[in-house]
């Protein structure tokens, strides 16, 4: 089994950096292209557009930095001589936690940055507000990778002590839950933030309303990520390692992680699209923002119920097996 051990360990080290780098590279390319197009449209605003694009790309890079940090951490603590087969197997969980969220986030973070560059080209005199707005929404958009990072560190801390297939499956499930679970909400958040940036570029009189609606909307869209984090942390800390081999138990725990991970995909995306539609309407009619935001929040609350069902099934699988 020795060769498998090394394969999983070094495979995770390579994947975490490589996949995050692909996502971030694509995202930064999209942002640069939008910035250059904006400069072409509005040459007098070239400086403002450049500032916005550079700040956006610096925030997009968070995913790559996190991936590299985890790779270096794993590489420095290579201990194959004492590692069991199961410890290496559990590092697949780290790969899922960092790669899924990092790749998607690097790619989709480009949408708000692109929209902000075009908005600055459209309204150069409003550029400080647009840039600040983009910074706030992009830094809130980085929540999934931060949570993935936390879970990856916890998995790394626990992996050294496990000795059964059940515990290996438990740690992989924890990583998959936060990794897969952050894909849908990340896409939803990006669609919504991009529409908000675009809206400010179109109608700057609506800035105040769009700003407060964006903070609330993003908090609602990211709720499925919080559910994934809670299921992940429950898998790590509330389901104790028994030290006995029980494969069926391990599969039940794996299913619990997968259930929330996949169950949040749809609610995340559609919640983002609902909020994006609302922000588009607020752009056109700022005076009707009260009604629009209330209806949007009501619809998002209904959509979120689907994610809550998935979490409920996960908790039943976790605690009433």
């Amino acid at each position, binding site marked *: 089994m020795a060769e498998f051990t090394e394969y999983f360990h070094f495979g995770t080290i390579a994947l975490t950096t490589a996949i995050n780098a692909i996502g971030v590279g694509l995202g930064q390319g999209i942002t640069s292209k939008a910035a250059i197009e904006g400069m072409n449209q509005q040459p007098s605003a070239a400086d403002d557009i450049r500032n916005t694009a550079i700040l956006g790309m610096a925030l997009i890079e968070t995913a790559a930095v996190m991936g590299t940090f985890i790779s270096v951490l794993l590489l420095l603590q290579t201990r194959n001589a004492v590692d069991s087969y199961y410890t290496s197997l559990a590092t697949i969980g780290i790969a899922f936690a960092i790669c899924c969220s990092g790749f998607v986030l690097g790619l989709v973070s480009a949408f708000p940055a692109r929209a902000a560059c075009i908005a600055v080209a459209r309204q150069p005199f409003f550029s400080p507000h647009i840039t600040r707005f983009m910074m706030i929404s992009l830094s809130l958009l980085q929540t999934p990778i*931060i949570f993935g*990072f936390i879970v990856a560190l916890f998995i790394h801390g626990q992996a050294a002590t496990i000795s059964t297939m059940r515990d290996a499956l438990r740690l992989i499930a924890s990583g998959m839950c936060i990794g897969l679970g952050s894909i849908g909400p990340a896409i939803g958040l990006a669609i919504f933030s991009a529409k908000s940036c675009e809206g400010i570029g179109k109608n700057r009189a609506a800035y105040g309303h769009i700003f407060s609606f964006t903070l*609330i909307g993003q908090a609602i869209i990211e709720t499925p990520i919080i559910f994934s984090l809670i299921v992940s942390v429950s898998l790590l800390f509330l389901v104790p390692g028994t030290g006995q081999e029980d494969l069926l138990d391990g599969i039940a725990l794996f299913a619990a992680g997968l259930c929330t991970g996949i169950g949040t995909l749809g609610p995340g995306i559609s919640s983002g699209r609902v909020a994006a539609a609302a922000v588009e309407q607020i752009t056109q009619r700022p005076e009707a923002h*009260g009604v629009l935001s209330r209806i949007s*929040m*009501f619809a998002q*609350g209904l959509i979120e119920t689907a994610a809550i069902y998935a979490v409920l099934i996960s908790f039943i699988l976790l605690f009433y097996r």
Partner: protein
Amino acid sequence: MSGFDIVATDQWLLGPLFGIDHSFLRINKETVIHTWITLAVIAALLFLGRYFLSKKDSLGQFFTLNFISFFVDLINQTLTEFSMNHFIFVTTTFCFVLGCNVISLIPWMEEPTTDLNTTLALGLVSFFYTQWAAIQVYGLWEYIKGYFSPFFIMMPLNVVGKLATVVSISFRLFGNIFGGSIISSIYFQAIQGNFILEILGLATGVNLVITVFFGLFEGFLQAFVFGMLSLTYLSLALQGEGH
């Protein structure tokens, strides 16, 4: 990192006093003490605000009045008419959650909101206040009839939908504050004991960025979101979904 606890071990046991042991009768010592300290800080700030109001044309009076008028505007915009009860409820909730979220800026303090019990209690308070306000407006019979609309069969869905708001509002607050506090504690553990890293963290301002972003910014944002969502659920319940 591997020894991180999310279940509090330091508890006051009330159960044995009455000869029974149940998880409802255990009290998390740290959470309760930190909540009391938070309440003391908020009360002190309130008395300061009162004192400022008596001084004409001072900076303190300006800030206090601005704070109050911000919430009055918020209520006026979200609910169609101003109501003193709702104003008091939303402002109190916001101040308490904000105090709980940013109390970790004081050394040796932990946010009470990193305990799921606190956030669940806040969510339940918000939920029951909303239901009580709805009953006040519509009367008990109309309120119960609301559960059976539009059809009789929709009753379970309506109940689940109502309960889902409690789960989502409290888990959202808990998850965000909990994640932020873990990140900052991991960071400060990592640089602790290494002289070069501590100096680097202080000199480059990474310490400051982590504290301000995860402590102050995230705390303020989540408190605002919590208050705003309570207000939105309230306005939904008062104006009705189909009325």
